[in-house]
């Protein structure tokens, strides 16, 4: 490097030479670590590209500035310390970058992301850039509140154990009056669902203002609870144009006795953290719909992987997050989805490259987020859903409830019976993956709604190739 005078001479210098590349760097337990998929422009060396990402996501600018010498600048320089070729993708590299804890404000996803995914994604020397995963140090995690309720407490409040929860999104998305909308909610809850949900774009449009929806939905929830003896809920979407409007809506939901409210990812990280604090103060379960994420999570070359969004949302503090179905209509490679579910539900997530998880992550006691599987699933897939997704999940059958030929209550009953019979069989030691269809057929003999559901949707699958897949495949190792 030479003398400080050489290092800080005015002009342009490669990022790798400015201190943003250090192959010998050993990350500290307190460092934030990010792994990016970088695709350098032709002719740009991958190490220089990785150093540039480290620089542009921390303290560097394009030219040398003497004012660095007023700071403990080495501390603030993120360090790229490892670059690996992406298996099977020439021209792409996984670049590991470590950031000192001093770079970040406590308890602020906005501040964390302003660095990590700030300017750097538009940086010209790169063709494309994707944030694949992050390791958040325990020291930083402890500055976040995390989920206001979490899986354990949500189940205790609902008094529902031992099986996935069941939900549905009210359909059609648009045009129902408050009264008609509440009818759908009542029928689905009485028939056997635990939750019904507003869709992400149900806010306060001309066909149904929010207060009207809340009043009729809570009538439906209370009536269904009395009809069944169970705690029931409807995710009232409080998403609005301003924080003041969202607080007003959330307060009204609380006043009416709702157990749960809902927000959309598009409201932004800071708004999500604000609503999380509100939910903790008001004993409310907070459901997050990931509206908008597909714009930046789906393509593997550029953007932010959903496993990172899931980590940020566990830190920001939501209780439910839509995290994929594997078998339904929306994007979802089985391995990638399992990795995301681990991030939501583990106390300690282990590194698992086949599932796209690059780091061990100690969650430091942060509560667990209930993943939500929603979109194009039906009762006939129950054995697959339970096998893939496990027990701590909300299975949402929207069309698969409301589209039932015998009506909404029958649709809900079909889903609940299919669920309970499959959990019972699993617990009895039966091989539900292989015997699932037979277990459902046996139950359909005494449950005509289930029989009708199986007949209606028997051949429906969404068998398309996934876009967002893991890059590592298992290889046989000598034992």
């Amino acid at each position: 490097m030479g003398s400080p005078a050489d290092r800080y001479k005015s002009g342009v210098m490669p990022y790798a030479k400015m201190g943003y590349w250090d192959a010998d760097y050993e990350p500290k337990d307190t460092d934030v670590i990010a792994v990016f998929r970088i695709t350098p422009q032709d002719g740009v060396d991958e190490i220089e590209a990785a150093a540039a990402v480290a620089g542009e996501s921390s303290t560097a600018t394009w030219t040398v500035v003497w004012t660095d010498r007023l700071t403990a600048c080495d501390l603030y320089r993120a360090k790229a310390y490892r670059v690996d070729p992406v298996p099977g993708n020439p021209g792409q590299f996984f670049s590991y970058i470590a950031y000192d804890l001093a770079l970040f404000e406590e308890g602020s996803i906005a501040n964390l992301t302003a660095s990590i995914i700030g300017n750097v994604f538009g940086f010209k020397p790169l063709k494309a850039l994707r944030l694949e995963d992050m390791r958040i140090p325990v020291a930083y995690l402890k500055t976040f509140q995390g989920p206001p309720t979490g899986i354990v407490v949500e189940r205790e409040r609902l008094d529902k154990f031992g099986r996935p929860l069941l939900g549905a999104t009210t359909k059609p998305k648009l045009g129902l009056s408050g009264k008609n909308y509440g009818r759908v909610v009542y029928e689905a809850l009485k028939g056997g669902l635990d939750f019904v949900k507003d869709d992400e774009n149900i806010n306060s449009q001309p066909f149904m203002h929010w207060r009207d929806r809340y009043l009729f939905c809570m009538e439906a929830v209370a009536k269904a609870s009395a009809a069944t003896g169970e705690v029931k809920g409807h995710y009232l979407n409080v998403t609005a144009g301003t924080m003041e409007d969202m607080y007003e809506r959330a307060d009204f939901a609380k006043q009416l006795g709702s157990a749960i409210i809902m927000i959309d990812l598009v409201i932004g990280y800071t708004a999500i953290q604000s609503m999380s604090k509100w939910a903790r103060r008001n004993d409310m379960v907070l459901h997050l719909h990931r509206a908008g994420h597909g714009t930046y999570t789906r393509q593997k070359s550029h953007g932010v992987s959903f496993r990172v969004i899931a980590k940020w949302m566990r830190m920001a503090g939501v209780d439910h997050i839509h995290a994929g179905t594997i078998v339904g209509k929306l994007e979802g490679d089985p391995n990638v989805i399992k990795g995301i579910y681990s991030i939501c539900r583990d106390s300690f997530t282990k590194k698992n490259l086949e599932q796209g998880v690059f780091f061990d992550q100690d969650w430091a006691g942060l509560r667990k987020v209930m993943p939500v599987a929603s979109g194009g699933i039906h009762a006939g897939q129950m054995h697959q859903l339970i096998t893939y997704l496990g027990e701590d999940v909300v299975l949402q059958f929207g069309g698969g409830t409301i589209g039932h030929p015998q009506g909404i209550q029958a649709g809900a009953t079909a889903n609940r019976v299919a669920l309970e019979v499959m959990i019972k069989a699993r617990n009895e030691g039966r091989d539900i993956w292989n015997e699932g269809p037979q277990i459902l057929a046996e139950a359909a003999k005494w449950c005509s709604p289930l029989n009708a559901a199986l007949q209606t949707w028997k051949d429906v699958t969404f068998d398309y190739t996934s876009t967002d897949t893991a890059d590592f495949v298992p290889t046989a190792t000598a034992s």
Partner: protein
Amino acid sequence: MKITQGTFSFLPDLTDKEITAQIQYALDQGWAVSVEYTDDPHPRNYFWEMWGNPMFDLKDAAGALTEVLAARKAHPSNYIRVMAFDATLGFETTRLSFIVNRPKDEPGYGLVRQEVDGRNIRYTIESYAAKAPEGRRYT
């Protein structure tokens, strides 16, 4: 009506053999099984009466079934449930809870609507049976 609290309330009532199989599953997970009963089926009545402590050191499901049968004999017209507790870090909570006995006649719940300001309504759920004093319900 039939109240549908618990993991298996949408299925036909479990036989003693089926109850034993579920208890065995819970024991195999390392969970402690307990029996609880009540004559107040309000959805937010979280604390049913304990039929003894959780059976922490029990390994054999048949032993737990004996307690279910004894609770049934003592409280034949009450709701009785089997619960399984998991002491693992990250859970430390109930993992399974299912009804194994219920009254022959379940009158259900009334929904009381208190009409307050504007269009607001305050809802209260009342079990018809629980209007009688404890111990004199479901007779």
